[in-house]
Each structure stands twice: as C-alpha cells, then as structure tokens.
C-alpha cells in the first residue's frame, strides 16, 4: 500500500473511531460514564496528550530534541494566551515570530 493510500485509510479509520466515540456517549447509560474515575481520567488524558503534542511540536526535529525559533514563538504564544488573546491571534503570532526569527537568521 502506498503512503498516500495508508494515510487515506488512517483518515477514514480515525474518523470512524471519533464518531463511534461520540455516538457511544449518546447511547450508553449516563451513570456509567458519570463515574468520577472515568470523567477524571478522560479529562487528564486530554491534558496529557495536548501537553505532549506541544512538547513534540516545539522541541523535536525527527528523533532529536532541539531548541530553535519555535521555542521563542511558543513562549510568545503562552504570553498571548495569558493575556486572553483569541486562538487565531495566538496561532498567527507564533508563526510570525518564528518566521521573523528565521528571516533574521
């Protein structure tokens, strides 16, 4: 299977998994998912995955842990978030900071 076809399979499989998850929430008895442990773990899984994605996207290049313009850009993004800037502003700001730093060399 080509890489392109494999990506298509993953796109469809991921979509199915996400839809079935949503539908399951609507179908299973509420008390089952309302267990504190389930709710607590689901909330923390979201936090852990997003934090790991931030780390990997900021500090890694392939299999190497690196520090480059992205670190400054993400720090600026964090400041913008602390100042309650809208999501789209934060994202664009990070891109501009990284692009400018790289252009300066």
């Amino acid at each position, binding site marked *: 299977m080509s890489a392109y076809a494999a990506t298509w399979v993953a796109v469809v499989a991921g979509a199915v998994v996400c839809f079935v998850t*949503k*539908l399951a929430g*609507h179908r299973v008895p509420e008390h089952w998912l309302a267990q504190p442990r389930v709710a607590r773990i689901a909330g923390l899984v979201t936090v852990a*995955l997003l934090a790991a994605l931030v780390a990997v996207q900021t500090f890694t290049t392939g299999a190497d842990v690196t520090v480059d313009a992205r670190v400054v850009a993400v720090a600026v993004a964090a400041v913008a978030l602390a100042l309650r800037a809208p999501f*789209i502003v934060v*994202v664009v700001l990070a891109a501009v900071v990284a692009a400018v730093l790289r252009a300066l060399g």
Partner: protein
Amino acid sequence: MTEADGTAAPVRTAARRTAVRQALSVSAATGVYGISFGALSVTAGLDLWQTMALSLLMFTGGSQFAFIGVIGAGGAPGAAVATAGLLGARNALYGAALAPLLRGRGPRSWAAAHVTIDESMAVATAQPDPVVARIGFWWTGLGVFALWNLFTVVGALVGDALGDPTRWGLDAAAAAAFLGLLWPRLAHRAAQVVAAIAVCVALLLTPDAPAGVPVLAAAVVAVVAGWHEETPRLARLGRSAPQRVRR
C-alpha cells in the same frame, strides 16, 4: 410536554435570542481557526481531499490537529489514529451529558453525535433550561460545522500556495495551536502536574521510540494520575483536583 411550559414567553424569547447569539459568535471564532487547521494539514503532507475529509468526517478539532501532527512528524498511520481517538474520548462524556437533553433517536441522534464537540457542549450547558439548551446545541454544532469546513478549504488552499512551511513559521503555529487547545484545561493543579510530566515523558522517549509513540505514552501518565480518587501527591498540591466535565 416540555419542561419549560411554566416559563413566561418573553423570558423564553430573550433566552433563545441570547443562545443563538452565543452560538453564532462561538461558531465564527471557532470556524475561522479552521484556516490554521487547513494550512497545517497540507504542510503536514496531507492533500486537499484528505484535509477536507478530516474536517467533514472526524470533526473534532483537537483530534484533527493531533492526527496531522503525528503524520507530519513521520509517525505511523496507526499512531495517528490512536492519538486522535484518545483525544476524542472526552466527546463521549459530552454525549452522555447531552443525551437526556436531546432525547433524539434515529438519524437526528446520529447528527447530534457528529456535532458533539467542546463548543456545542459548552454553549448548550450554559443555557438556563433544556429547550434553550437544545437551541444552543444545534446552532453551535451546525454553525461550527459549516464554518469549520469552509475555512478548512480556505486554509488548505493558502497552505498549498505558501510552499516551505518552516519559512512561514507554520511549524511553530502548530505548536501554538496545541498550546491554545491545552490552555483552558490547565485551571487545576492536577492538570498542570500531569501536563508537566507528559511533556517530560514525550521528550525523554523521542530519541528512541518511533514517531507518534512518545505522545501516546504520555496518555499513560493521565491514566495513572486519574486512577485514584486523589493520589497523595496531587492531593498535597491542590484539593480542587477532580476533573469533571465543565458545565
């Protein structure tokens, strides 16, 4: 028949109007950042059609960003599916909270499930009564769906035209997007501790584990931390720890 028959009509009309206004502003704000998803998706190596398929069929922002993040980092398609699926797990909790409110069956409930996301949950549960909550849910869910998909296409076309993604700082934009999704969830000390450990686990595993695995491994941190009522360490750090779906 409805729970709201006792509510005075003018109050109801005002509440409906407020719900619709909230739904539209949330839809606009969320929809516009579909541009960043579309642009980042094509720079991660997906084509226009795959990018559109993700927004149409997966339709849950965090999972979509995670999916293209893993693919863009050279991760296996299976790791991308697993990461996206795990990030979408919270939608099941939203569904369970919304189901009694929506009381739908058949195709309508399938549509309700598809538009069960952070934003529709947040707007629905912010409303004063079930009838208005339903209005908030559908207007937000369908509004975000329409705009998110529209702006995904715009972003994908823009991203294609830009060429080298790093020259435009799009790799940093992807990191900032994840940070933006994470930020509102860091209110509690327990969440902050889990986030910090997850960062360490992911970076420590990066040199040796296949791409995509360091992120998945971080989920284990959450399961361990969340398993006990209050682990001693988390209890000491902050008593407001229990993570419940925000209502």
